[in-house]
């Protein structure tokens, strides 16, 4: 009985270990990806790096700033997640995480978002 119980304990440990590996390798990244907060700081960077090349005044895509749309309009835009007159998915320009960060940045600075001005900036 004692041996059986010991064997059973070892099996449990192995199972828990394997379970942790599977969890940390597969489940955890998904959970983190779904639950982690989008970054406005990174969104601003990706917007400037990826979007502003075409979306400045006089450029091919026309000027786009966060103020171009309201929060609801940005939300709608990112629901379809397509650009270039809806001819291609945004994933062609940026990764999904980058799109999520850019969406957070644009939402936070949209035309109807609260964004009080400050001193000396």
């Amino acid at each position, binding site marked *: 009985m004692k041996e059986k119980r010991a064997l059973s304990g070892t099996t449990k440990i192995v199972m828990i270990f394997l379970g942790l590996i599977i969890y940390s390798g597969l489940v955890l990244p998904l959970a983190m990806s779904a639950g982690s907060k989008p970054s406005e700081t990174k969104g601003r960077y990706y917007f400037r790096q990826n979007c502003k090349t075409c979306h400045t005044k006089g450029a091919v895509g026309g000027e786009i700033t966060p103020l171009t749309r309201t929060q609801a309009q940005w939300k709608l835009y990112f629901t379809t997640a397509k650009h270039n007159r809806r001819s291609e998915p945004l994933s062609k320009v940026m990764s999904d995480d980058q799109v999520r960060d850019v969406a957070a940045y644009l939402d936070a600075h949209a035309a109807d978002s*609260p964004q009080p001005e400050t001193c*000396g*900036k």
Partner: protein
Amino acid sequence: MNRRRFLKFSAGGAAGAAALATSAAYFAPFQKKQAIASGLQEIPTTCEMCVNKCSVIAVVNNGVIQKLNPNPENPRSRGMVCARGNAGLQEVYDSARLKRPLIRVGARGEGKWRPATWDEAFDFAAQKLSAVKEKFGPQGSLWSSSESFQEVFFQNLGLSFGSPNTVRHATLCLASVNLAYSATFGTVPSFDLLNSKYIIMSGANRLESFITPDTMDLVGSTTDRKARLIYLDPRFTVTASKADEWYPIKPGTDLAFILAMLNVIVGENRYDKEFVATYTTGFEQLADHIKQYTPEWAEKETEIPAKDIARVAREFSDAAPRAVYYAGRRSSWYQNDFQMRRAQAILNAIVGNWDRQGGMVPNAHVELGEYLFLPWDDPAAPRVDELDKNFPLAAKGDGAYLKLRENVLAGTPYPVKAWMIHKQDPMNALPDQAKTIRMLGQMDFVGVIDIQMSDTAWYADVVFPESSYLERQDPVGVLPGIWPVVVYRQPVIKPIHDTKTTLEIVQGLAKRLNLSQYFDYTIDQWVDAQVKTLPLDIPLEHLKKHGTYFPSGFPKYGTTLTPDHRFVTKSGKIELFSERLQETNYEPLPVYHPPAQPTAGKFRLILGRKAYFTHANTTNNPWLNSFAPENRLWLHPSSAQSVGVADGDRVEVTSSAGSIRIKVAVKQEIRPDCAFMLHGFGKRSKWQRLVADVGASDAQLLETSWDKVSGNAALHETFVKVVRV
């Protein structure tokens, strides 16, 4: 230029600042080559003696700055340099400036230091910051700063370190104004004082406390163009002396005055109906709301006659759109400051002065490029001041300084144990100095970057000496406004001591904190990226030669006056009634609540500035100090009699925050229920030799109090007892 020549040039004595500014410099701009002998260099750059950033030209002889002249090419500077601008030389040549890194060897505040190499200072600070991070997380560090062109590098160091706790000077400054105008118009406009015909000011003592080119617009308006100036202030200031009408308003009741003006203008159909209908929302709620606030009611609150309130309201609406209730450049005085500013904004809106000549004009900008640096992960922890909970509408990156200090002292929601401070003096800038000293005492580490041994530096563990503004290159700055201007600050001499720029100090620390990847650029790369969008053939060469650039075609009026224009507000209109305020449990229209009044035997402490001094920063500048070497406590003759003191007697002044000893100045020019003192004296740092233990510091008396919506420090909410000693 020696001190004697300086005084002569500045028209001498206490009137120097104003006299200099009103001199021929404004009305007949400085001629660039006038003062230049052969062999001298003229190098354009940008002043840093206050926030205004005027363009100046340094006259340099063999690596020594001889003089700072105005730069006539910057329309915003109006060809003037004020007393402070002239005294900028002392920032470089004052023997008391910080000359090398210092590490504390005595107790905090004891003033014992040892010189250190830069490597020693960086290693010491990085080790302390890392230890705090290890024990308390990155949120255990606080990064505070005031505005300057290199502030961005310092803030980015704090953010890349992982701290959510960057706190700027805004809640000691204009946060209530900025928030109120942003909530109403979606932006903070400029006031076209140059073309106004009717100007009302609550407090903002522009002709005495802050002599800049836009002060000269006000002078021009009231003298040359005969605009009317209506001025409300418990003191008879220099501005009061130049006003057409001065009302010694009962402190804290300005909101009642404005609400009664609204009552008259709406009740008598004197508002701009077309403008209100086209561009605003919430007028019906406003009209209902202000029916209760009659001039007769306001007379009882403000002690200003009802007939005068009604007349001023009528004159104001008659003069519109060239009429402004001027926000001015002053901080919050009372806990209702946001709502008082909202009422000003609403009053300006309904007379239709928005985007009109002589009214309020949305600021024009010049688009600069941007150096793209690697972004870091956003901080995981919430802010220590719990801004989202306490001040949900406040500017996120600025924080709320006094609430932050309360939470840090209480250790909630988590401990903060390291404090890095960039060109700011919380010891004097924050009310209730005893609390600031306690907060400093709670820290495992305090590091200060500055050019002088401020009172806060005096309590630091390590002091990093920054190169002065005349010794360094900064990022290019844009001054938005009615005349948007780009200004360039370049070194006019090499650093004369062992100092560094903020970027170099940040990079030195970043290297040791393993954050170099976020600061892997030079100031030249940063500036190049900024200027490449300017419509100039060789932008940087232009800025080096001229010190400034401004696009043609300004001022422009009416660019937002199209029915389809969307204001940056929730509704897209100018919001007289604010749904956003209502949603966040604030009053959606300004509601008057009578302010507390001093009990018998006590006085309301009120503060002020002189134009020679930038807050507490330049009182130790020898040239400027000579204009006002000591502060005194103003008391009305009847108050002095009740206390039993005469002019020059010493008194002890006590509040719940602390007590000071100071000489009395008996003055007719103040209400009997108030006591006044000038800011910036009674320093603790012995290196501030001209003001150390000279006069007294208001920060030792002021109690902790803030505006309820913006979190801005409320500086006139302290009652003091005065006794003879």
